[in-house]
């Protein structure tokens, strides 16, 4: 079942074309990574999928209703004046849900922050703040989860453990995930399908199915299949940048 689709979308800004023509179809429960050089329009494509922006031309189809789409941004984007719990509860409270606090605490527990409900964002490390941001995205049980270079500002160890966390959370409730990154390894690790984009305005430079099960088993990063796919995707990316 198709959950969301972009068909020949083009986005023009006053300073020039940002994206397209670009197409992407997303099935329910699927994990897709968008990889491309900086400024190729990855984030723009994500905002189209979120319904936060309209294309200049082309078609956007979205089946998730209000509150069924969640976005995680590059920065944790937490309100500094709210506790971790209040930040996570915010989407529920905006929708008028009654049990917002209890559900927020449960979401925090799912990302391993059970004892940090009352902490303010300033008291959390970068990785913990990103977990709060992920908890806020998951608290509404979205059908579509969009992640816009969420780990770009974090160190390699934290990135890797968060990638495993995202996949574990995905296997629990199976939302469709679109993961934007410029890190090829991360893309191949997290997604069943990697869409490589050309330099901006981005088009599709190649689509790759990744091998192996999701979530990834321990040691997956050193398997020949994984390495080979990373090399293929990297080559397509390099070609897309030159083209």
């Amino acid at each position: 079942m198709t959950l969301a689709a972009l068909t020949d979308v083009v986005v023009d800004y006053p300073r020039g074309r940002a994206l397209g023509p670009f197409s992407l179809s997303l099935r329910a429960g699927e994990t897709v990574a968008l990889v491309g050089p900086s400024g190729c329009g990855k984030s723009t494509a994500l905002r189209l999928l979120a319904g936060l922006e309209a294309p200049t031309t082309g078609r956007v189809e979205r089946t998730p209703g209000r509150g069924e789409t969640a976005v995680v941004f590059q920065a944790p984007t937490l309100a500094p004046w709210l506790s971790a719990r209040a930040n996570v509860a915010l989407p529920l409270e905006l929708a008028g849900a009654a049990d917002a606090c209890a559900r927020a605490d449960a979401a925090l527990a799912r990302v391993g922050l059970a004892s940090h409900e009352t902490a303010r964002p300033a008291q959390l490390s970068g990785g913990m703040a990103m977990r709060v941001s992920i908890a806020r995205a998951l608290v509404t049980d979205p059908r579509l989860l969009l992640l816009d270079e969420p780990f770009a500002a974090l160190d390699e160890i934290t990135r890797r453990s968060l990638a495993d966390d995202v996949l574990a959370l995905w296997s629990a409730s199976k939302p469709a995930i679109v993961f934007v990154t410029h890190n090829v390894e991360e893309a191949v690790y997290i997604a069943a399908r990697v869409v490589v984009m050309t330099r901006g305005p981005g088009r599709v430079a190649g689509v790759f199915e990744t091998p192996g099960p999701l979530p990834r088993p321990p040691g997956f990063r050193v398997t020949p299949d994984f390495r080979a796919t990373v090399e293929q995707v990297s080559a397509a990316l390099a070609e897309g940048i030159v083209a």
Partner: protein
Amino acid sequence: MRALAPFVLLAVLLAAWEIACRTMDVPVYFLPPPTAVGAALLANLPTLVAAAWNTLAVSLIALVAASLIAQALAILTALSPLLDRAVRPLASVVQVTPVVAIAPLVLIWAGLDHPERALVALAVLVAFFPIFSGAVAGLRSADPDLERLFDLYGASRWQRVTRLRLPAAVPFLLEGHKVGAGLALIGAVVAEFGAGSGSVRGLAWLILDAGARLQTDRMIAALVVLGAMGVAVHAVLERIEQAGLRWWRGR
């Protein structure tokens, strides 16, 4: 040592002033020595404190009024782009008009029997702008990605203002109130001068009254009290701002 430096300089300046007055036989009505000012300060302490309180009360009432009006207007401009267009140029007009120039008019409107109302109104005019412009800037300072989240979750305009833009504006509001409070005090004093003697008996009235009698020592004593009050108000607001920011940031 560093903390003592300004006091040492002050002591040296006062000593030089005292010695100069005594050795050069400066007439007391022209420039009284610091000891004479000190004596005047002690002798007139009850009047000075009462006058300082009158001035302070006017500026505090004005600060509260300016705060309410400025924030209400800023929220309205945040809710409606049309109101934003309408209000902001007028707010700038209020800012660029000197308070002494409006004082006579406001005094007439307030009526001869209620000069204190005019003083409050004039101090409000001066304190209004920094709070308003701080609030307007603060209401636009929320993280654009947080604004997008509010779009995504279908927040109403009211929710967006109360749950996102107002709390995001807190640091700007604290700064605006700090500046506004200092200006309210200055506005109150300037308005007292505009109102002239025989009106509310604040510090400016005391200075005018003493000047009319050539009691220079009393004039300077009133100035000293005014300066001390300004420093105290600033220090209190600085503390409030720091505490507010610590609460807002969560550390």
